[in-house]
């Protein structure tokens, strides 16, 4: 078949699919809503996982050791510590955070709860040295060594290089990914089934028409064409609607979290669904609806 003929055929399939949609909008709306709802849920999971992953990535790159200093340590002692730290391999920068700066950071972080600190008579937060390490595979070993060595030094209250939280978070994220994928497969198998059933209803409603088409010489492929194009259109519309809803929900969550200082909600809604995840969602939507349409029409033609 020539290219021009193929284009004409596709145009006809699209026109016919749209025509069919206009004549029985109920069944088609049901199919689109079902798929859009499933994709919306998948989009939400993807949004949360994406944002948590982004945060974990930031934490992973932010390799630093915090050395909390005793109030009794004088400037000379602090200077000696700083010099020793700067001389170590794998240390990129050493930053001194005095007590006032520590309080300021806390106030910024705690938001509405910061009034608690204001009620205290004296600033309880210790000054610290923040040791930024050169990011890379060796950073973890360097950080552990720095923490172990400096926590025993005079004038040091505590040296902290806590990677356990990050590791736990990474493990949780892995678990969520595996669980999400498993759940995703189950949900989408169910959605394919529902889509196929709904589309089968549409096909059933048109069985006389299909018979007529076959009787006047249409090939099964020609009869299936508009159904498959309709399936493609439904997948596209459903996934775009779902993406729109996810973005709407994200913005709503952001506004809600901003008003009430909900740090966690703010974290999971910080960034929109990435381009890759959006493309994946659209591809899944198209795949599900095309598969559903194919199975629905294959039984009739």
């Amino acid at each position, binding site marked *: 078949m020539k290219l021009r003929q193929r284009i*004409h055929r596709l145009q006809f399939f699209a026109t016919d699919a749209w*025509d*069919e949609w206009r004549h029985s909008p109920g069944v088609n709306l049901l199919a689109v809503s079902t798929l859009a709802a499933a994709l919306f849920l998948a989009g939400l999971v993807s949004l949360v996982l994406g944002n948590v992953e982004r945060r974990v990535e930031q934490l992973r790159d932010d390799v630093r050791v915090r050395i909390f200093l005793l109030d009794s340590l004088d400037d000379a002692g602090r200077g000696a510590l700083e010099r020793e730290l700067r001389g170590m391999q794998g240390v990129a920068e050493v930053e001194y955070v005095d007590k006032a700066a520590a309080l300021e950071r806390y106030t910024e972080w705690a938001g509405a709860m910061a009034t608690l600190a204001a009620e205290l008579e004296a600033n309880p937060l210790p000054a610290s040295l923040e040791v930024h390490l050169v990011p890379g595979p060796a950073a973890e070993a360097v950080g552990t060594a720095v923490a172990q060595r400096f926590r025993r030094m005079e004038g040091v209250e505590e040296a902290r290089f806590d990677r356990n939280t990050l590791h736990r978070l990474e493990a949780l994220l892995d678990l969520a990914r595996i669980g999400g994928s498993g759940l995703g497969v189950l949900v989408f198998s169910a959605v394919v089934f529902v889509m196929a059933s709904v589309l089968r209803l549409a096909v059933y409603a048109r069985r*006389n028409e299909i018979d007529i088409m*076959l*009787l*006047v*010489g249409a090939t099964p492929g*020609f009869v299936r064409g508009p159904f498959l194009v309709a399936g493609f259109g439904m997948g596209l519309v459903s996934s775009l609607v779902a993406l729109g809803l996810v973005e709407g929900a994200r913005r709503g969550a952001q506004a809600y979290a901003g008003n009430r200082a909900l740090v966690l909600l703010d974290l999971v809604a910080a960034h929109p669904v990435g381009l890759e995840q959006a493309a994946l969602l659209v591809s899944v939507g198209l795949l599900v609806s095309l598969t559903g349409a194919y199975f629905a029409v294959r039984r009739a033609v």
Partner: protein
Amino acid sequence: MEKQQPMIRLYSVTKRYAGGVTALDGIDLEVARGEFVFLTGPSGAGKTSLLRLLLRQELPSDGQILVNGRNVGALPASKVPDLRRYIGVVFQDFKLIARKTALDNVAYVLNVAGHSRSEQRRLAYNALRSVGLNHRINTLPRILSGGEQQRVAVARAVVNEPELLLADEPTGNLDPDLAVEIMRLFREINARGTTVLVATHDRELIQRMQRRTVVLRDGQVVDPGTPER
């Protein structure tokens, strides 16, 4: 001079349905190219079954059916659409696509045959004009009267200039004047070279047309009629 191949040739064709009902019982029949033939007989004689076999809606239980030299029963499924594109069909219940206009119903046949959109519209319009419905091209079937629907079905059957036209009780739902009008159209189509086979039990119509008439009874040909020369 070599004898021209017949348009339809049936060799001992039998059609039995589940439950033991025999619709056609070993019939032999030949219809020449360009002939106009009536197929008649009482209800249940096997007229519709014969047309269904010719269109490969069903397979014969026994025997062979040749349409334009092609063994219909042995055709692979992938070749059935090709066969149907060379056969125009008019059904008693019209079988029009409800959501398509008269023009789109007629154009659909050309669309499946791969004609361009402009050609589809031009030929479909001409076919509808030939049945006197050029003023109803954008009308949906449910708005049309029974006679108009049947004329759309005729236009659809002839738009592709088929080699064979099959009609199953095409005047069954029409008043006598419209029935005559439909027959006039069939005669015109036949005059252009299309072989026409019309199943009907309307004896008055058959007498008026004076064409070869094959009589079926209980699945057998009781009178093969006199072939036209």
